[in-house]
């Protein structure tokens, strides 16, 4: 944020006490509650290249400038047409007509946020793709976004970016009237901060020593009734599991009858019928039924084959992942993922809840340190240079890690079997995708856009012997109706969707799209294929 704007904001509010947030924090308050300071820092360090300044392109940019990316460049040599002046909010209406579109758009985008740098490069992308210097320059951005680019130019761009796994990912968008699709191109994207809403395991069937000790030490029959009525459900369940195992050869309840009996054993521990903490323990008994040492989707990550084109900056993540696999097998460890320090709220008094919280926090600290020792032993170089915050975040989110491996733009369209399968499983999404791919091919040949021409093009993609579903007629007819329409509402809709994906890719938080997202604003749906 510039000096003047900060001052304006300061003047606009009164009485700033010491513990209150600064102007920037106040401006970004609603988004910092989503991606925190680390996500904001990643956004501010990003440089984004947008190819074209169409209504869709400027809509995407608006949603990236507002949250505060570092820099954007619009690459476009187009002269503003009367149509552009009619559908693009970031042009000065009639007075922009005849002027360079990108140059008109940049100041109107920049005024959204003084902290963001932006510039217009008044060239066609194909010009830059033709020189080594131009190609290198494209590779310097954090992310490239292209809207309705000619097919051959887009193919060239995607091939260039795919050839360098350490270069920027590419989001390619195609829209026509009420229909659109976009694709995110990356070799591999790793996330630890997925913000999953699934709670990590509390490890009730594999309690750490201090927790088991507490559960075993309780004299449930003779303890103070108030304390009894405020025992956290976690301790109750650990106790119940311990007793169950003693009388069942070390096994957990498996059959339906056993599960019912287990629940009854919890309620039988009550001193009074209205003890809510025991009711809560009964309601939470499902946690005991299946508590794998390592959840299956994390186990899958342990056996991922190495990827030759994994970007360099994923090296730390992979080293951490290897360490994690070893941690779960290490005989001196818990045999599980590192425990999470965060507890859900539960019926308990302050003392026992805080006590429980401290036990989990201490156990998490012990396991994290053990993890770090393994990390240092296994990957001494990486461990030395790794950002400690990245390591902490990885351990903290060990239950929700994700690794996405992407495809090059267009690879799906070359895989006839995949297209045919997709057409039978997700007919409307695949049909819409095919109609848009056909449009893109026809436009680059400057052919007339007719229903027949689109059908013939789809036929080429699918080959012979494939029956066209009705969905294909619906999609092709709609594309033929409005082949070059960049509708304001579709532009805004894509502006939001693509910006969400860009933010997820840049911040490495939440989980971005893998494949194509297809949009139909007639029946108002989106779907993912490829």
């Amino acid at each position: 944020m510039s000096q003047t704007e900060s001052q304006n904001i300061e003047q606009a509010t009164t009485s700033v006490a010491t513990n209150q947030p600064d102007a920037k924090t106040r401006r970004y308050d609603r988004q910092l509650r989503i991606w925190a300071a680390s996500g904001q820092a990643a956004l501010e360090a990003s440089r984004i290249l947008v190819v074209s300044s169409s209504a869709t392109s400027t809509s995407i940019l608006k949603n990236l400038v507002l949250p505060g990316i570092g820099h954007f460049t619009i690459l476009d040599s187009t002269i503003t047409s009367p149509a552009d002046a009619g559908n693009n909010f970031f042009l000065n209406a009639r007075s922009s007509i005849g002027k360079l579109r990108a140059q008109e758009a940049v100041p109107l985008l920049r005024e959204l946020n003084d902290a963001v740098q932006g510039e217009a490069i008044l060239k066609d992308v194909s010009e830059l793709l033709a020189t080594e210097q131009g190609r290198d320059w494209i590779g310097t951005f954090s992310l490239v976004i292209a809207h309705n680019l000619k097919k051959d130019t887009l193919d060239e761009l995607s091939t260039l970016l795919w050839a360098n796994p350490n270069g920027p990912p590419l989001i390619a968008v195609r829209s026509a009237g009420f229909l659109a699709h976009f694709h995110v191109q990356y070799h591999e994207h790793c996330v630890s901060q997925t913000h999953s809403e699934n709670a990590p395991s509390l490890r009730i069937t594999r309690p750490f020593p201090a927790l088991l000790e507490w559960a075993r030490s309780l004299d449930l029959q003779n303890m103070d009734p108030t304390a009894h009525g405020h025992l956290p459900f976690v301790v109750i369940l650990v106790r119940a599991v311990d007793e169950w195992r003693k009388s069942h050869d070390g096994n957990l309840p498996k059959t339906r009858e056993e599960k019912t009996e287990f629940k009854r054993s919890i309620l039988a521990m009550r001193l009074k019928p209205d003890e809510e903490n025991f009711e809560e323990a009964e309601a939470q008994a499902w946690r005991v039924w299946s508590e794998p040492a390592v959840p299956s989707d994390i186990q899958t990550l342990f056996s991922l084959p190495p990827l030759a084109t994994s970007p360099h900056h994923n090296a730390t993540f992979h080293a951490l992942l290897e360490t994690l696999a070893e941690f779960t097998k290490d005989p001196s460890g818990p045999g599980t993922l590192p425990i999470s320090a965060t507890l859900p709220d539960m019926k308990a008094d302050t003392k026992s809840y805080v006590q429980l919280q401290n036990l989990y926090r201490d156990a998490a600290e012990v396991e994290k340190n053990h993890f770090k020792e393994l990390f240092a032993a296994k990957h001494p170089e990486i461990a030395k240079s790794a950002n400690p915050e990245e390591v902490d975040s990885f351990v903290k989110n060990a239950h929700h890690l994700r690794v996405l491996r992407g495809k090059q733009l267009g690879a799906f369209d070359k895989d006839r079997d995949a297209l045919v399968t997709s057409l039978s499983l997700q007919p409307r999404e695949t049909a819409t995708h095919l109609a848009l791919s056909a449009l893109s091919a026809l436009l680059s040949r400057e052919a007339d856009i007719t229903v027949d021409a689109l059908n013939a093009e789809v036929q080429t993609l699918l080959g012979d012997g494939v029956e066209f579903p009705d969905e294909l007629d619906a999609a092709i007819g709609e594309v033929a109706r409005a082949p070059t329409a960049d509708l304001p509402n579709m532009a805004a809709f894509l502006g939001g969707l693509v910006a969400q994906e860009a933010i997820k890719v840049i911040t490495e938080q939440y989980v971005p799209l893998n494949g194509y997202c297809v949009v139909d604003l007639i029946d108002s749906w989106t779907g993912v294929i490829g």
Partner: protein
Amino acid sequence: MAAAVAVNGTSSSSDWEGRYYHVDQILDRPGPRTDPSFLAGDEVKEFLREKCKILVIGAGGLGCEILANLALSGFKDIHVIDMDTIDISNLNRQFLFRPKDVGNSKAIVAAEFIMNRVPGVKVTPYFGKIQDKDEDYYMQFNLIICGLDSVEARRWINATLVNMVDPENPESLKPLIDGGTEGFKGQARVILPTVTSCYECSLDMLNKPTAFPICTIANTPRLPEHCIEWASVLEWPRVHGEKKMDTDNPEHISWLYEVALARAKEFKIEGVTYSLTQGVVKNIIPAIASTNAIIAASCCNEAFKIATSSAAYLNNYFMLIGTDGVYSYTFEHEKRQDCPVCGGESLDVTISKDWTVERLIEMLVERQDIQVKKPSLSSPGKQIYFQAPPQLEQATRPNLEKKVSELVPDGGEITVTATTLPFNLSLRIKYT
């Protein structure tokens, strides 16, 4: 690329040739899924650009986006209502506002911005509450789009529009398009009052507002939120008496933060911060530009389709979750026959014969599909319990202890009213 396209007969003085090149591709011919009643060409353009009058409720995160989309789509007579003024924390997404606008009316600033940027569009702002306006006012619009963050305001406009429907007069049915967002998630829906499910029908789909039991706050705090609630609910009135807490006043928030922090220290609870304090007492919903853009675009797209018949409109609910890839779900939310606003049938409530009036009130307050604070109860010709005025409250207070079954026969009706409830809720009481 648009130079050859002429605007046929619908040009007003501010239009230029080719202005609607993109939108006209849709309006000049039907698509395979377009209803046969669609009249492609001049007539539909004239209606959209010369006659259609649309109301936007809310000029905030969704409202700014909605106004821009409508203006570019060709709506030229737009009205906007918002009672709020601009705050710094709006600037990360409410893109019609700049730092110099802080403190000014959202509706007025937004309207001026749109009229400057999109010539020929008239935006009429109203800086005030939706409740200030009567049925005659709402009757003048063809369509209403709602971009609000308040459940109470939405219930009010929903109930108002349902009540306005006169079966003899098709013009009295005003389609209501409603959007809402939270973080990477959002929803858009089309409500045809009395025809489709209404806002009230789906009240139970809302996330339950996090309410902490008073005894937890007072006696067994565990979370930082419990300490903050203690400071705002119990300590503020105890220390400041009648002085009202203003959650927009940084000094008040600072006071709450200090008090909550001290209590957290006493109980060894971690995590009380200024930001969390503000979040809890103001019930802040995280918000970003991109999600608002998606939902506002969906709302405006439905408005455009309804106004032009160029394509079928949403039936009737679109939900988007952007946290893990792009996930969305489009479905028909069903009308509730016992919806207190559009259902016509009274709500069946089965209770024990032993329940007191007080217990019934507690149950009503807790129910997610009713969401009422401080309800007053009456049965035909009888006052059961009234929250206000004080004399009436005092006179009916003894009834709180009485059993409902002493006052209302099996199958009898109770009418529930409340200041937060924009309609009378009628219950049919049955005893177990």
